[in-house]
């Protein structure tokens, strides 16, 4: 025999056979609705820009015009120069980002091993970090030439210290209790390092990816500004010298697109590397 407790509300729901749908804030708060609004906003801005330029309200010479940018885009795609320039910049940025992140994280993590070394090097790290890395560009070009290496080196200089400082801080913040637990189990320093310190620093390092992928692009583009024959930075620099604003805009939009794609790529990497973080902390509370 079972005891059945049924309230009015549950009976009504059971009769309707329906589960209550989560309430929505508004009609557009769906993936499709948001995308529609976003596209609408872009189209509106570009439309106003184009109309303003073709009516002569704003100077097409100084600000360019969307149709001209589009024409440049198609001719650039057609002769293959745009994909090539984009690829060169992407290649430099990613190479610099990867090398800088690995180098910085490795040094930052290894500082955990020796408190003495960490204290010894701290002022130097702070000093290095406070130098605007862009200011290194002329020297980097003197040292590494005008080719790929100098752009990568610049991107590395921008990203490595960010990763280093984050990794060292993350390693210092690694849960003491987890470390104590391992020590009480008889673990040595190396086991504690790889068992607790490294895994708990990985999310901190990954959180620098988003900033650092941007810095990688900055390093690559600034290097191209200084001296180069290819790349989006070179394209923008050259076009601005010729007052070809449409090409400048096109370069900027391509950089924006690159940043956008890389950002989502990092999202994917994060999901892959941190499966244990997925279940918690993703959802914002509803207020």
């Amino acid at each position, binding site marked *: 025999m079972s005891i059945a407790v049924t309230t009015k509300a549950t009976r009504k729901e059971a009769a309707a056979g329906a589960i209550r749908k989560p309430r929505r804030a508004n009609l557009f708060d769906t993936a499709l609705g948001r995308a529609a609004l976003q596209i609408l906003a872009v189209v509106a801005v570009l439309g106003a820009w184009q109309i303003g330029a073709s009516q002569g309200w704003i100077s097409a010479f100084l600000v360019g015009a969307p149709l001209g940018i589009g024409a440049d885009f198609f001719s650039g795609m057609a002769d293959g120069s745009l994909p090539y320039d984009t690829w060169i910049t992407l290649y430099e940025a990613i190479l610099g980002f990867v090398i800088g992140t690995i180098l910085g994280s490795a040094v930052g993590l290894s500082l955990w091993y020796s408190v003495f070394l960490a204290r010894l090097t701290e002022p130097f790290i702070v000093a290095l970090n406070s130098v605007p890395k862009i200011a290194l560009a002329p020297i980097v070009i003197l040292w590494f030439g005008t080719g790929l290496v100098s752009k990568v080196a610049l991107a590395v200089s921008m990203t490595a210290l960010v990763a280093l400082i984050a990794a060292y801080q993350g390693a210092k913040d690694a849960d003491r209790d987890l470390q104590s*637990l391992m020590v009480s189990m008889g673990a040595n320093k190396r086991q504690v390092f790889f068992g607790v310190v490294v895994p708990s620093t990985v999310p901190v390092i990954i959180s620098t990816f988003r900033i650092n992928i941007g810095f990688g692009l900055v390093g690559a583009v600034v290097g191209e500004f200084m001296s180069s024959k290819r790349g989006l930075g070179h394209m923008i620099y050259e076009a601005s010298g010729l007052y070809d604003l449409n090409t400048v805009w096109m370069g900027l939009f391509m950089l924006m697109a690159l940043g956008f794609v890389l950002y989502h790529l990092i999202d994917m990497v994060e999901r892959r590397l941190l499966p*244990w973080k997925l279940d918690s902390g993703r959802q914002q509370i509803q207020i």
Partner: protein
Amino acid sequence: MTQDVQLSIRGMRKSFERKKVITPVLADISFDIYERDFVSVIGPSGCGKTTVFNIIAGLLESDAGTMVYRGETVSSLRGRIGYMMQKDLLFPWRTVLQNVLLGLQVRGTPLKAAEDTAREYLARFGLTGFENAFPATLSGGMRQRVALIRTLIMDPDILLLDEPFSALDYQTRLYLEGVLLDAVALFNKTVILITHDIDEAVALSKRVVVLSGRPTSVKAEHVIEIDRRTPIDARSDPRFSDYFHTLCGELDIQTRRDAA
């Protein structure tokens, strides 16, 4: 009844220094733990119970005193004890199975053998099917059960349990107390339990060591003679209440209304 002493602590002393101010915490701690003993350590909060554990576990060094383990003077029992705390301290990036494996990996047990043992333990404690779950997806009681398995699987000589159940609700706690008693009987373990819960101390332990306030020394030792098969049985034993009130008295807790 003659019992063999497993661990003997004599004159343990410890003070902490912060900003040039020296605070004596442990003044003089001496007690014995017998083979297959179950000893609860109670005392006012902040009296240094956890400090005693940290010294035994080798996470802290005492200023003075000796520890004799099965006739041999030792500085700590690092690697020979299983330490379990109030926080479950599961590694969030490890699955249940990997968490249970932790101690065996530290010890260097071949992975295959370690995994087999881990699965066996998980099955015994009713966690089959959760091997690949991450701790974030488990309830508090299950997490603490995983922590208990992680402690037991290393087959430690002594279990140091530092308020392991105090963050759990009463039902889960009663259940886990039962699991603990069964496991201790099954694996013939010695247990030292820190608790602020006198009820728990009486229900689980064979002996209770009462510590004084800071600077701390051992105030009293009580032998609990209760016929105990399960923690719930123990609580319904006629002598339970007497022990409870005696221990409350030791801690200067007023248990009778007329005392006010």
